[in-house]
Structure formats: C-alpha cells, structure tokens
C-alpha cells in the first residue's frame, strides 16, 4: 500500500435535528472532527449536549441531517442498508452504557453474534469468540449468561463482542456509566491495552474526568458543538 491509510473517522459539519410533533431539536449543530487510526479520544460535555447523538452518527446507527461522514475512508451517505450493515459489522465496534447483551444467551454466543452476520461458520465463530473473551480476561465465563455475571463482566463481554470482528474503530458511549469504580477501572484498563496492542481507534463518551484522562485527546461538546478539542488539527 502506497497511499497513506485514511483516518478512522472523518466528519465534516455534521448536524442532526430531531423533529418531534412540530418541535425541532438541534442536537448537533455542525460538528467536524477527524480521528486517526489507532487514536484514543474522549468526548466529554454536559448532559444533553449531543454526545450520544454524535456517537450514534459515528457508529452509523443513525444518519446525519446534513454533513459528511467517512468511516475508514468510506463515505457513509448514500450507502445502502446492506453496505451500512456491513460497515457496522466489520469496521465499527460499539459498546453501550447498558451492555445490551442478549439475555438467555451465553457469553460465548453473545460475542460470536456479529460473526453470524458476517457469515462466519460456527466452529470459527466459537474459536474467535473464545479468543476475544480471553483477551478481556473472561476465558472462564464463556458458558455464563448475562444474568449470571457482574456488571463489569457483562461490559467486558460487550467489549469482546465489539472487538471480535477486529474493527478499525471502537465506539463506547459511557462504558463505565453503569459500573462501580473498581469495575470501571478494570474496563478502562482493558480499553487502554486493546488500543495499545491491536491499534484499534477508541472513541469514548464519559462524564468522569478520571476516565477521560485515559485518552490522549479530549473533545468537549456543548450545545451540539465542539467547544474544545485538545487534539484538533494535530492528530496523532
């Protein structure tokens, strides 16, 4: 490859407006940012400032009202449902504040789920899911169901699920929001290590300064705009 790798995320002037019963809410009012490959960034800001809205756009779970978004060099607008699904499946890993694991399903099968949509065979799925679970230190919990695990363990399963497809970008919306300090610290240690070892870019949203401190770059959002970006322009 001679061309330099494209940035993991490149957003230009993203807006997102919600129209509800005639009332329209401008959740994002023109956000531009660029996340390099392997970068680690934290998005911080007051409640209601638009952090989750931004994350959903970056994760291709939602479409912007206007603006341009490229994930790993692929322009998102105009992609078909199938191509968008593929992007979510292979390029992006998403970690939610409330874990979102399938109940009644083992840790191993939860982690293997994205590979089902990738078309990976059962044996290989299980093998890769096992590796992913081991990498978050849950090799001994593979047969457990979400209800049989602690919050911290559940969030680590969710991280393993986000990483099993070896994405370019890991997006985490308040991954420690539902965890106590000890579990939160453990989850952050895993994200640190994964970012360092596998080179996946990590973007996380948090309220907690200690969590934000794990990132080399802080992006402050207020009223749907980026107020301050400690890494803006520079990049990694």
């Amino acid at each position, binding site marked *: 490859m001679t061309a330099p790798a494209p940035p993991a995320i490149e957003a230009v002037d993203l807006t997102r407006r919600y129209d509800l019963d005639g009332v329209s809410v401008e959740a994002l009012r023109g956000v531009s940012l660029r996340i390099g490959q392997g970068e680690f960034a934290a998005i911080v800001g007051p409640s209601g400032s638009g952090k989750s809205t931004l994350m959903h756009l970056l994760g291709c779970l939602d479409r912007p009202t206007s603006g341009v978004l490229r994930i790993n060099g692929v322009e998102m607008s105009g992609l078909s449902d199938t191509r968008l699904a593929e992007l979510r499946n292979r390029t992006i890993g998403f970690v939610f504040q409330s874990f979102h694991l399938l109940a009644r399903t083992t840790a191993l099968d939860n982690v293997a789920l994205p590979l089902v*949509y990738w078309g990976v065979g059962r044996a290989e799925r299980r093998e890769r899911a096992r590796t992913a679970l081991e990498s978050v230190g849950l090799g001994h919990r593979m047969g457990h169901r979400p209800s049989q695990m602690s919050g911290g363990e559940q969030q680590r399963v969710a991280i393993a699920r986000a990483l099993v497809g070896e994405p370019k970008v890991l997006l985490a919306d308040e991954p420690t929001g539902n965890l106590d300090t000890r579990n939160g610290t453990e989850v952050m240690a895993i994200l640190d290590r994964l970012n360092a070892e596998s080179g996946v870019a990590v973007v996380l949203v948090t309220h907690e300064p200690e969590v934000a401190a794990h990132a080399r770059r802080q992006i402050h959002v207020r009223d749907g705009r980026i107020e301050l970006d400690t890494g803006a322009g520079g990049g990694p």
Partner: protein
Amino acid sequence: MRGRESFVMALEALRVNRLRSALTMLGVIIGVLAVVVLVSVGTGAKDAVEKQISGLGTNIILVVPGQLTVGAAPTQSRLSLADVAYVRRVVGDPAKVTVSLQSGETVRVGRTEAFVTIIGTDQNLTNVFQRPLAKGRHLSETDVDTRRRVAVLGSEVAARMFGDVDPVGRQVSIAGARFRVVGVYATVGQTFGLSRDQEVHVPVTTAQRMLGVDRVNGLAVGASGPEEVEALQGRVVAALTERYPGEKFSAVTQTQLLGTIGSVLGMLTGVLAAIAGISLLVGGVGVSNIMLVSVRERTKEIGLRKALGARQRDVLAQFLIEAVLLTTIGGAIGIVLGVGGAVAIRSFTEVPATITWWSIALAFGVSAVVGVFFGVAPARRAGRLDPVVALRAE
C-alpha cells in the same frame, strides 16, 4: 447470514416462548385438523355412495317418464306393462328388462307392524340388478303371470317381522291382503340413504291390482357390456318418444349417475374444505398478531442485532422463518391429529372417512403459505426498525 442460522435463531425464539408459541399454533392446528377431517369425511361419503351405485349391478340403464332428478317425486307415469313389452322388443332380449312399481304400505305379521316400501317387479330383476337371496327363491314368471300373492322380503323386514323364525312359507299381510313369503334377500345396505333391506318385493301384476293402477313407475335395462350402454340408452328413449310424441322420457346410466353424484359430493367436500380453510386463515391472523407482539417485545434485541451488523433482510428472515415455523409445525401437528381423527371416526362411527393425500399436502402447503403471508408484515416491520430508535425502546 446463512439460512441455517436464521432457522436456529427462530427455533430458539419459539422455544423460549413455549406457551405462547403453542397457543399461537393452536389456531393453525385446529384449522388443519378441520381440513383433514372434513375432507376425509366428504371423500368417504362420496366413495360410499359410489360403491352403493356400483353395487346395484353393472351396465344398468334406468328409464322413467318425465325428467329424472335424484330425490324429487317422480312425474306421474303413463308407462304401462304394454310399454314394457314394447321396450323389451326394442332392446331385443326381454330378460334384460325389468320393471318397478313402488308404494309405501303397512306390513303386518300377527301383532307386529311395519311401514315398508313395496316394490312390484318381475322375474327379470336379478338379470339387471345384483340382489342375492339369503333364503327361498326369487319371484318367478308364473308369479307375475298369474298375479300370485307372494313376496320376497328384505333382510331387515324379515328380521323385524319374524325374528329368528324362518319366514319362507309363512304369511304376511300387506295393506290388508295376505301374501305368502317365498324368499328373503341377503343384506345389501343403503342406496341414497334408503335401506334396500327394508323393501318387500311382490309381482308387479299383483301390485298393480292391489294399488288399483295399470301403470309402472319405471323400468331398468341391463346392457350386456359397457360399450353397449349408451347406444341402448338412446334407442330406448327414442322408441318411447316415438310411441308417445311430445312426452319426455329420461334414461340414466349407472355411469352418468356416478358422475352426477360424484360431482355433487365433490362440491360438498370442496365447500367443507373451504369452511375449514377459513378457520386456517383465522389461525393465520393469530400468528400475525403474535408476531407483531413479538416484534414489539424484542425491539431492543432487533436494534442490537442491527447495530452489530444485521441487515434488513437478516432480521426479516429471522421473523419470517419464525412465523412459518409456527404455522408449519402447527400444520404438522394438525395433520397428525386430523389423520388420527379420521381414523377414529371411521372406527367408531358409521361415517366412512377416507384420508386423502391431496388434502394433507394442501393443508400443509396452505399453512406454510399462511405463515409467509401473515408473517411478512410483522417481519418487514422488524427489518425496517431504525437501530437507534429500537435500542432506546423500553
């Protein structure tokens, strides 16, 4: 995603909601059960009637004055024994023509009375119809020629009037006149719902005198081979019409009778199947309903699957397969129960239920189609859910 994965996922979802799945299937089960049972009863009835008609004999042509309609009162007859003799000449073989004059009369032996069908006929009856004897003899030519007061009893009449006693040689009173029993027929069963074992046969001449008439109700011709039947039918009708210009005579062959009855009962079976089909459709509406509930309940799960890379069609397939599994599993259970029901009806009642493979295949096919038809709307709704909205759902 591969088909097998969607299949496993759908099965899993049904297993998790066992009770609800079972109740949803119930509608389909009942529908399919109804189709299989009703069609087998209808088909059985048709087979039975056809067997009865074939059991009358072979290559029979029935001739009556006027228009022939099954079940309707016969037109006033003008056919006399002279006409019968005329038809005998037309047919060529007099032995192949027999005659019938019917009346309902009271039969009495001692204190036992019964209202039966008296049929005046002749010695040629057995050349045209199959009517085996259990005891005694048939009516003879002399009986007819000399207007003897003799009678041959149907097996039920004999049993009712005489019990275990052998009736041959004994007296019966028919409409007040004394007759001597010369024979008893073997049991032959019903034709068109009328038991032929409740008939009493007497010479047609005797019957005419008893009833005070000189007509007969109709006659029957036995052709010597199937290839002869239609030509003979035409010849007889033409000859009678020529003798009585402007009057109508009808002749119907056994084959035509089979065809008519067959199509009437076939239609009846079709109507039964359609009614049962409606209940299958109602079962399908139930499936649709439950699938909508299921989609709503699992909105979060759908959102998550989409966030992890499920395409619209993966989610659609998952829910569609679920719906089709519901109806086809229900259909399979309904078929098993329906076949069991038909076998039970056949064993424990007199209804001759006949299981037909086409009804089973149709019921199963329809339940699969019902699954697709009623599953597609909820499945599409699931497939189109927006991931963010779905994830936020409570």
